[in-house]
């Protein structure tokens, strides 16, 4: 009996499978005419009658979908679909008016932003959205009781730090009232910054600057953003289902101001953590989007469905100078950096589209003055040169007054690529310099703890941009910063970065930061290894899906199914 049941079930599924396969074939046939790639034009929703529904694999369940508390890219991604800021970044990362009616009016000194909201904006539940919802949101994120780890991004607003530092109720209330964000009327918002920031309009597109509905959020208490019915946004989609660790369903928000330009009716995100199974789901047409890695990419090489997204993420090494005094010598650090073949690493080990680094600030990151940092700064990193590395090492060790190193260990994440990278580094140091270094792969949390408590000799680490400006990369190596775990100190560097923090002239600021990075690289204070890239598979029928280099994993607003 049982067998019969299984058999019928199997038959039914086989039939369904063949049908799906048939549909897939039809689609492939139709796509033979020339068309743009997945990231191409967004306005091709020609209404051919194809179902505007998409299924995606997604690697993580968002911890909490609350604008103030969110800190993972999973939260950024889903909230970006469910809600919206004053602006939304298009495929070229340019801010387009979203809840705002137009680009901001910026005062001559660059510190006061006056923003007109669209008329008749509503939250997904139909209640009106006004400028006050922004004021509430910024105050809530900065309130120390909210414990928002990204609150520092809101301290750019005048008086933000004072709210963060408030010690008692009275001073908190006063600081909140003094905060540089005002609702002039229901549709006019005025934001005053501590100092001019060239990239601030783009930043207004990010989660931390989204509005929040006070009545709704305070009604949820501790559970804000915990379930589908505890999330309220004003974006292109509504979260209609959230089975934790299993599935999220987004459906089109009919009350969205730009609903006419939202093509997708439904997006189903299945939480899939194993990329091999993810690939099976993709190949059997159960999903339209999948993560992929390493050798899985081989069969897709050269096909348009394989999309590589270059991210604002740099992989780098730190040499701990207190534990290993020899690392305090610049020549020693240079030698160890110079002995690593970065091209070889990205081409033979990582193989995911990552490129060898040419500095610390990655490709695509802005310089804070309208240009791309790397274009302006050029290649600042030491080149791979084994002979020079040997000479420098000998000189450096002599200068440092030591004959050889103590036992060295390179610590890193125990992921598949993380471990391979450690092996590569160790073999390069052994072959090129004759130094023995042991590997120490650790779980992420443990690696981070040991790194931040300076309990390592060499660490392989990663940094991703929190915002699109060189400052997110460079302020972390000021002496005394908690991420300057290698105990490197350079007065000139500190002066340059600190002056940039206060600089009102954005051109001068960009110049200071460029010089600062040059010092960081000349001194080999850290050793950047690669600029990360992540590969994905996206079915060709999916049009206009944007894969931004930082913040959210993807942008769904302009996506459609052909």
């Amino acid at each position, binding site marked *: 009996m049982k067998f019969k049941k299984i058999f019928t079930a199997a038959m039914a599924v086989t039939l369904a499978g063949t049908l799906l396969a048939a549909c897939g074939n039809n689609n492939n046939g139709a796509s033979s005419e020339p068309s743009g790639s997945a990231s191409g034009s967004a306005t091709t929703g020609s209404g051919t009658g194809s179902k505007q529904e998409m299924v995606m694999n997604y690697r993580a369940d968002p911890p*909490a979908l609350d604008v103030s508390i969110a800190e993972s890219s999973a939260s950024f991604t889903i909230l970006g679909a469910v809600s919206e800021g004053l602006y939304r970044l298009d495929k070229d990362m340019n801010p387009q008016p979203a809840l705002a009616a137009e680009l901001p009016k910026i005062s001559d000194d660059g510190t006061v932003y006056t923003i007109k909201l669209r008329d008749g904006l509503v939250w997904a539940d139909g209640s009106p959205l006004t400028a006050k919802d922004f004021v509430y949101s910024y105050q809530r994120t900065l309130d120390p009781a909210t414990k928002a780890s990204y609150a520092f991004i809101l301290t750019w607003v005048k008086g933000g730090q004072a709210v963060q530092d408030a010690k008692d109720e009275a001073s908190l209330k006063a600081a909140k009232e003094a905060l540089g964000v005002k609702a002039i009327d229901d549709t006019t918002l005025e934001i005053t910054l501590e100092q001019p920031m060239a990239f601030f309009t783009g930043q207004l597109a990010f989660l931390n600057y989204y509005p929040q509905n006070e009545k709704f959020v305070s009604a949820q208490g501790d559970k804000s953003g915990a379930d589908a019915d505890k999330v309220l946004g004003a974006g292109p989609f509504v979260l209609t289902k959230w089975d934790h660790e*299993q599935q999220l369903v987004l459906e089109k928000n009919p009350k969205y101001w730009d609903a006419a330009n939202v093509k997708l009716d439904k997006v189903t995100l299945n939480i899939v953590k194993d990329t091999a*199974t993810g690939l099976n789901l993709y190949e059997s047409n159960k999903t339209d989007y999948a993560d992929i890695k390493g050798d899985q990419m081989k069969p897709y090489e050269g096909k348009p469905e394989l999309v590589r997204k270059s991210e604002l993420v740099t992989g780098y090494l730190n040499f701990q100078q207190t534990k290993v005094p020899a690392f305090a010598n610049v020549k020693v650090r240079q030698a160890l950096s110079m002995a690593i073949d970065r091209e070889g690493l990205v081409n033979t080990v990582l193989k995911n589209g990552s490129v060898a680094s040419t500095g610390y600030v990655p490709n695509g990151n802005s310089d804070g003055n309208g240009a791309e940092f790397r274009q302006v700064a050029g290649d600042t990193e030491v080149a791979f040169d084994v002979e020079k590395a040997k000479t420098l090492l000998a000189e450096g060790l002599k200068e440092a007054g030591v004959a050889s190193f103590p036992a060295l260990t390179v610590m890193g994440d125990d992921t598949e690529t993380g471990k391979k990278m450690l092996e590569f580094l160790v073999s390069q140091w052994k072959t090129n310099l004759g130094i023995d270094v042991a590997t120490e792969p650790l779980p992420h949390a443990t690696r981070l703890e040991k790194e931040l408590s300076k309990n390592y000799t060499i660490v392989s680490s990663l940094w991703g941009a929190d915002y699109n400006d060189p400052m997110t990369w460079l302020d972390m190596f000021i002496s005394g910063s908690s991420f300057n775990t290698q105990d490197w100190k350079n007065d000139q560097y500190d002066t340059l970065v600190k002056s940039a923090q206060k600089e009102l002239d954005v051109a001068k600021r960009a110049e200071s930061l460029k010089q600062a990075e040059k010092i960081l690289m000349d001194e080999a204070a850290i050793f950047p290894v690669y600029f990360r890239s992540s590969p994905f598979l996206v079915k060709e029928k999916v049009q206009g899906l944007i894969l931004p280099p930082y913040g959210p994993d993807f942008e769904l607003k302009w996506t459609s199914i052909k």
Partner: protein
Amino acid sequence: MLKYVLRRFIYMIITLWVIITATFFLMKLLPGNPFGEMAAKLPPENLAILKAQYGLDKPEWQQYLKYLGNVAQGDLGVSYQFPTRTVIEVIKQSFPASLELGIESLVVAIIIGLLLGIIAALKHNKWQDYSSMFIALVGISVPSFVVAPLLSLYVGNKWGILPPGLWEGPEHRILPALALSLGTIAILARMMRASMLEVSSLDYIKTAKSKGLATSKIVTGHMLRNAILPIVTILGPIAVNVITGTLVVETVFVIPGLGYQFVSSITTLDYTMITGLTVFYAAILIVVMFLTDIAYGLIDPRIRMSGRR
């Protein structure tokens, strides 16, 4: 009987207490802190508030006593990874899938395993015996982390017979249940075979045979009842093993179960989740063992615990 149950219950509580205590202090030995990257980005004052909220500002023995008190009241705390979810909520959400999968695979394993074992014993040293035991050997030597991806790749993807993953309709249950049951099938088949062979050489079976009873009657009426006893004893631990040991299968077939939560709680140092899930799993194990003992007594009147009447 009642006295026995009561005594077992007290032992259960003591065992649980030992497990909680050991887990609690061992966990604190792990390097790192549960706030991860956030800890470095947060201003120290906010981190202090956060720590106070989770009670991490107090000495360990105070944390421990507070935790024991909470557990006694059925409160396992709030997860660190998912600050809006309590451990109880996570269990409620994730355990049903693990339980369902575990039971399904156990049923499959019992049916197939016992059948293979019986066939092998009845056709001792014939080809049926050899092929049954070959299947059992394969089941034991090929672990689920090999079988599961292969099933997903071939049956699911390449041949398209069943879904390669996800947890939706009944057809999504077949492959994971099969992958999970292989090892158990093998164990049960081998045990059943050995047990049947042993029983079949006993005097009362010889008597039954010489009485001229039909083979089917001898097998069902006399051999099975006695041969199945050792199986019942190991069924308890096997059931727990199957229900809790679903991690690989859950990950491969994208099943929203508790196995994955357990492992990720350890790598992210989610203190409350680690202890909470350990307590939960330990409780299941203890309860199942207890039920097994009682079932054992019911099947075999010779081993009633209260003994003489």
